[in-house]
């Protein structure tokens, strides 16, 4: 039987789960926004990782065939996306219920209540198909894919179309409804959900014209193959394999919990490990020559020195101030009314970096407005802000002993292209051109990966017997 290991990183902003196999290969990833209910966040991330693992196993099984038939991969990717939508839909329905429920308790007056119920129903009707379309046609792109972010964006769009007077009450109803919807745990039946997804996919391809538009897509050929009457054939030839992964008994042999919320995870004490060690271990596993790790997460920045084994020899963290962390960027994005993912690309367009003196997150907001008033361009201000973050990180790195070759950058902020630009620039300026800088596409998962890897090693090293119950996942 295959053995799998789970790492859960309950961060301050996002909760991540990674599943690895006996060869330390990532086979499942799950991520969600951390919320007041930590257990729910961890569970959602874990479930997502397990589902994702099943799809990875499917792809791995079909490795040879996928190479020969790219449309197989297209099919599986589509299927996973629709599968995600099926889960999303359940939560969306829950949110719908909550919105109506809140509305009924919020407005005592019958007439007003009816009017708002009507608006809420219309809003739901308007955004539901849009979200479905986004999932089915992979339109979510680089946008944040967390439930809260997706629905709140759509809800806002719809509310903004209505009269201004309705804004306040509708937003209040939203605020009261989103948390219960988000904190509800659902038990999904993988088999049932995948069947639904396959049906949904069939409808999609049936309704697609048998020609393609002129939009270029990397999946163009694959899609074309699926379109040309091939769909049923592909679907049928994959069904047996899909049926197989439905039946896999997915045993997690051991697990490790890490991150700020680690103490709150329902894990045995010896399965809890500091995120500093996990991030370093994960980063070192992916880039084995790593000696210095910089991790910029939601609410902290860590500079970590590791040895040849990936074990931490020293670390420095910020703890007096949040400036320079992911949340700082989130705050700035809010101040500028743009999405977090747009910040980096916009900052890349800077022609100069406006000097941002403030080292405080909250005051940076005021500074930003002041600079805008002075006529500075948004891009240039953003360039300055990103540079300021990296300056802080550089000082932390210096405190931790400097940057040694190789240097690996991890954490959610490593996804931001402007951060990468300034970091690379400043690391090279300060520590020379010979420093190799590593950034992995899965940088945000490094802590969870490190955790999963510790979970695997724990068994060989110091596993206290009889404490862990085997976790059988659905």
């Amino acid at each position, binding site marked *: 039987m295959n053995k799998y290991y789970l790492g859960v990183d309950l961060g301050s902003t996002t909760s991540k789960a990674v599943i690895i196999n006996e060869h330390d290969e990532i086979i499942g990833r799950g991520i969600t926004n951390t919320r007041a209910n930590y257990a729910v966040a961890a569970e959602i991330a874990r479930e997502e990782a397990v589902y994702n693992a099943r799809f990875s196993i499917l792809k791995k099984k079909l490795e040879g065939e996928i190479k020969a038939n790219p449309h197989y991969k297209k099919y599986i990717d589509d299927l996973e996306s629709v599968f995600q939508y099926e889960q999303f839909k359940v939560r969306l329905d829950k949110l719908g219920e909550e919105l109506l429920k809140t509305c009924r308790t919020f407005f005592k007056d019958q007439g007003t209540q009816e009017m708002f119920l009507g608006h809420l129903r219309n809003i739901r009707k308007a955004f539901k198909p849009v979200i479905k379309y986004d999932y089915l046609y992979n339109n979510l792109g680089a946008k944040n894919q967390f439930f809260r972010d997706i629905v709140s964006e759509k809800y806002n769009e719809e509310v903004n179309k209505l009269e201004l007077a309705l804004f306040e009450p509708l937003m209040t109803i939203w605020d009261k409804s989103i948390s219960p919807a988000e904190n509800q745990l659902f038990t999904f039946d993988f088999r049932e959900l995948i069947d639904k997804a396959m049906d949904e996919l069939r409808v999609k391809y049936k309704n697609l014209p048998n020609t393609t538009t002129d939009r270029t897509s990397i999946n163009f050929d694959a899609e074309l193959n699926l379109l040309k009457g091939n769909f049923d054939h592909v679907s049928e030839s994959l069904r047996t394999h899909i049926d197989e992964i439905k039946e896999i008994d997915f045993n997690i042999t051991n697990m490790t919990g890490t991150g*700020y919320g680690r103490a709150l995870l329902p894990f045995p004490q010896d399965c809890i*490990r*500091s*995120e*500093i*060690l996990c991030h370093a271990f994960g980063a070192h596993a992916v880039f084995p020559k790593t000696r210095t790790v910089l991790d910029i997460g939601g609410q902290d920045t860590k500079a970590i020195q590791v040895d040849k*084994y990936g*074990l*931490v*020899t*020293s*670390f*420095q*963290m910020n*703890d*007096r101030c949040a400036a320079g962390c992911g949340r700082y960027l989130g705050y700035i994005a809010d101040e500028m009314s743009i999405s977090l993912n747009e910040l980096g690309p916009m900052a890349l367009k800077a022609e100069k970096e406006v000097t941002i003196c403030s080292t405080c997150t909250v005051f940076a907001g005021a500074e930003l407005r002041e600079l805008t008033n002075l006529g500075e361009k948004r891009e240039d201000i953003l360039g300055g802000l990103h540079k300021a973050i990296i300056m802080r990180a550089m000082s932390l790195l210096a*405190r931790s*002993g400097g940057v040694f070759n190789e240097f690996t950058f991890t954490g959610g902020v490593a996804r931001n292209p402007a951060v990468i630009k300034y970091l690379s620039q400043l690391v090279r300026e300060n520590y020379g051109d010979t420093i190799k800088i590593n950034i992995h596409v899965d940088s945000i998962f490094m802590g969870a990966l490190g955790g999963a890897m510790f979970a695997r090693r724990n068994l060989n*090293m*110091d596993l206290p017997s009889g404490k862990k119950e085997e976790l059988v996942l659905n």
Partner: protein
Amino acid sequence: MGMESKAAIKDKSMVIQKDMLAGLFHELSTAKETGKKVVYTFVPGNLIELILSFDMLPVYPEINALQSGMRKKSASYIREAEKMGFSEDVCTYVKCDIGMMLNGNIGPTGEKLPPPDLLLLSYTGCFTFMKWFENLERLYPGVPVAMLHTPYQEDGHITQDQVQYMVKQLKDDVIPKMEKVSGKKFDQERLSRMMVNSAKAEDLLVKILESAKNKPSPIDAYFAGVYYIGPIFTAFRGTEEAVEYYTELYEEVMDRVRLGLGPVTPEGELKEEKFRLVVEGPPNWTNFREFWKIFYDAGAVIVASSYTKVGGVYDLGFRHDSGEPLESLAKYCMGCYTNMNLPQRVSLLADYVKDYRADGFLINSIKSCNSFSAGQLMIMREIEQRMEIPVGFIESDLVDPRYFSYANIKNRLESYFQMLEQRKIIIAQETNAVLS
């Protein structure tokens, strides 16, 4: 039976110490009636034998501040000082002390402390001390000030010229002022006699602290160490009482060594010594118990610390010498830990790591304290490179509770202990690989 008598013995040194301190504070509270003169002075490089030889009593403002911290009174004292205009960045010992004075100068035992008859600034290695005394001078106008300038060990050693320079200050300024305040003639004989006692207590203290070289260590040389250094670093060096106390304590510690026992914590004896650490920097006082608990819960024992050397690095060999009392006062002042240059500190700490067989080196960086904090990152890096052990860095403050973040400190220490644990596993594996 053994256990019972042991518990009784353990109580004995603690009872002695408690009585000693209570006695001192009582004497201070009645100083005006008894006509005893009071000298305000600092712990590092203190001239306690000299003060006692004039039958005067010492008040240590930084001891009062740390006591206020432990008794949860420092926050309001600091607020009081900040209201007066002291900035957020000023040393919190200073602010706590000033706040206490403004609040009626009630000492740790609840008894009022007398105002000073002499302000004796015997150690100038901490620049803040000078500023502190400038403030005290204003708070107590007209009180004479004696300042003993202590040359820093810039070149890593004490020269004969430096000793002579300090002896001259003692003779020309400090002693005359003390004679004037106390109304007594300087009695060098008496001073010498006290120094015999000083050296005896110093010998014992060194043995007690060095008992931590045993595995398991019978003491925690930081959290319990701060209690052990109490009498000798403050009012009792040179007295019979101090010799008695240290004799008692030494016997207790030796009993623990014989029985192979670990250190005593507030929650009883530490059962398993998992990590041995060398710690640099003062402890936090406002959350002292909580802070200690993080360590003993993880089985971490501090086997050596620099903080227990602020009032003298006796393990390097210095003893008060009855043969040259004034010279040895000078050497004592210049020899205290914060008067050593950074390379000296590094090599002292590196030796501790080696001699005490430590698994790790940890710095508690104190926001308030420049004397300690300057150079700490360099020290840490040097120790990391030279000794190849995991190093840790946490930040807190002496007596300002606003700067003790329990969650952050715990998170860091947990990470650090896990680092140490991993290191042990790896070392074991490497050793096995070599052996097989």
